[in-house]
């Protein structure tokens, strides 16, 4: 059966789910996600909530790095800002939805502040600016005791909606899932309209983008704001997950994890962001589950986790430098053309480094 599909209107061309198969597939996925928590052990429900939160954060960074081409090594700072704002506002008695919104908003403001230097600074320089920003933020969080509780941390009130606590594993699962769905829908909309295209335009050729009327500086800052706001939302949810937030929850390690997610997932694709969050988010648990299988001489070595973690990263980058999404697309392409596909399809040609300076 051929998968070709004829569109009969322009609107259909930009629909999110274009074919019957897609509708079926994603419908089934949604159903599975709704039913699953009732069928799996509670531990995995908690894990799933955590993965959803990471997906949201990863989507946020993807907007910035994958679509607009601005690498941020300090994304965890935005999560932190969101988390602290949320915890403080909840403590003051703000209702959950408003507080979540405010967390995103505050993080967005911080994104604006970081985005402004980004107008002038690009590439690795920008990456290090964001890193510096995150280090400073972490430092401030440790010192500004009246607001953040300093290193002793800050207790996060239970999420309560209309008098109903969402703190338990099941309700929290659905809260995270709903937030993920919302963020994904918003970003999908954004990416298929003018602003999303402008992001890509700024990434691929600033000169051409400018020539077409795109305000490059504003677009870059906007990407920062949106990315930071989404990350802030993720941070607020993460605060509930940990129930107690301290500055080191939002350090370099988290920032690096997020960068790894978008990269391993596949730059420039929202699907990639999700793939990446799934892999990188689950990796520590997978390693810890696999550890008892190892001979105890090796299993009890210090640094084993780190070593395996690194090895998996290396494996994935080498296997598919364009990310899991890249491989997904190619496999799907191969399936589509199955009987017609000729050999040589997966063979790699010689390649040459192309300078990204200038």
């Amino acid at each position: 059966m051929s998968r070709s599909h004829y569109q009969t209107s322009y609107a259909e061309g930009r629909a999110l789910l274009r074919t019957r198969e897609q509708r079926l597939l994603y419908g089934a996925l949604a159903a599975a996600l709704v039913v699953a928590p009732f069928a799996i052990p509670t531990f995995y429900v908690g894990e799933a909530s955590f993965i959803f939160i990471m997906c949201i954060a990863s989507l946020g960074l993807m907007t910035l790095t994958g679509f607009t081409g601005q690498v941020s090594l300090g994304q965890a700072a935005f999560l932190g800002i969101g988390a602290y704002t949320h915890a403080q506002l909840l403590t003051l008695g703000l209702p959950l939805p408003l507080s979540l919104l405010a967390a995103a908003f505050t993080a967005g403001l911080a994104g604006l502040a970081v985005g402004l230097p980004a107008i002038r600074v690009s590439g690795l320089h920008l990456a290090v600016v964001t890193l510096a920003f995150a280090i400073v933020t972490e430092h401030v969080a440790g010192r500004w005791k009246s607001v953040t509780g300093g290193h002793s941390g800050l207790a996060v009130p239970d999420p309560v909606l209309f008098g109903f606590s969402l703190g338990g594993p099941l309700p929290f699962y659905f809260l995270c899932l709903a937030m993920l769905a919302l963020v994904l829908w918003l970003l999908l909309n954004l990416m298929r309209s003018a602003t999303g295209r402008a992001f890509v335009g700024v990434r691929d050729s600033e000169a051409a983008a400018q020539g077409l009327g795109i305000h490059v500086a504003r677009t870059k800052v906007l990407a920062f704001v949106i990315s930071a706001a989404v990350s802030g939302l993720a941070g607020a949810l993460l605060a509930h997950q940990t129930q107690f937030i301290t500055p080191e929850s939002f350090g370099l390690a988290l920032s690096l994890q997020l960068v790894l997610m978008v990269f391993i997932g596949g730059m420039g694709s929202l699907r990639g962001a999700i793939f990446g969050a799934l892999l990188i988010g689950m990796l520590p648990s997978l390693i810890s589950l696999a550890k008892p299988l190892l001979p105890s001489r090796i299993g009890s070595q210090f640094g084993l986790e780190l070593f395996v973690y690194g090895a998996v990263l290396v494996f994935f980058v080498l296997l598919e430098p364009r990310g899991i999404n890249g491989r997904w697309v190619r496999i799907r392409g191969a399936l589509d053309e199955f009987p017609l596909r000729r050999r040589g399809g997966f063979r790699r040609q010689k390649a040459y480094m192309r300078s990204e300076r200038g």
Partner: protein
Amino acid sequence: MGAFDSASLSQFVQLGLQGISTGAIYSLVALGLVLGYKATEVLNFAHGDVLMLSSFAAWYFIAEAGLSFWFALPLVVLLAALLCWLLEARVMRAIVGQPQFAGVMLTIGIGFMIRGGTSMVFGPDSRSYPTPWTGHATTLGGAIVADLNLVIIAAALGVTALLFVFLQRTALGVAIQASSQNQLASYLCGVRVKRLNSLVWAISGAIAALCGILLAPISLVDLSLWFVMLKALAALVLGGFGSVPGAILGGLLIGLIEQFSGVYLPDGFKDVMPYLVLIAVLVFFPRGLIGEAHGRRV
């Protein structure tokens, strides 16, 4: 006013000297990074881990195997160079032509592996070993500097001079710059690009090893030695990516800023001051203080 009486003057000199010697470490680490970047346009995030591994190797040869320092030094430098050569030839080469960031990710992964592996092999606890300069200090203009710090300054100067001459004056050095700008064209000119890249990585690894061996006696042989990479990164960007003098300047500046803000600013500023300065500088000099000319023609 008397703000500069002799006591505060000698304190000033002491801080300056100490700043320069700490900065020299950052510079030296940054130099290794610049070099790798110059040739292959990969920012090697595993650099700090190679440095850390080298210090463990040095500890092994000196404290465990009982070799003399002067024998262990070249040995470790050579081994680190070999390791980096192999990393380039066996791993990094596989992703040539992929976006710049693939290289960063790959080196982050390699860095984790090195750190995890070191801790698996040697155990994670810290340790130390003696050097010919341990425990000696020299008085310079009223300020006291550990001899080891002087050695590090000298090493930084020496490496800089060598690198500068190598990159600017030798055909091979120009070829390195050329291949980073346009690798394909470099191949077409008959440059053995692959070998050249491996060579550059090896040199960069050797520099990392040198840093590790000299730094470890000051701050102990320790898994967290790789952290120095973050400061070096800041130094690199402050000075301007891809520039040898920039790396030196950036490193020294960061060292000095840390020293002076540690004493003259309220507590708490010392750790963030270098980063605040970095952000401020980049807003005004987006390519760092002595960054390369830029601008693509359209």
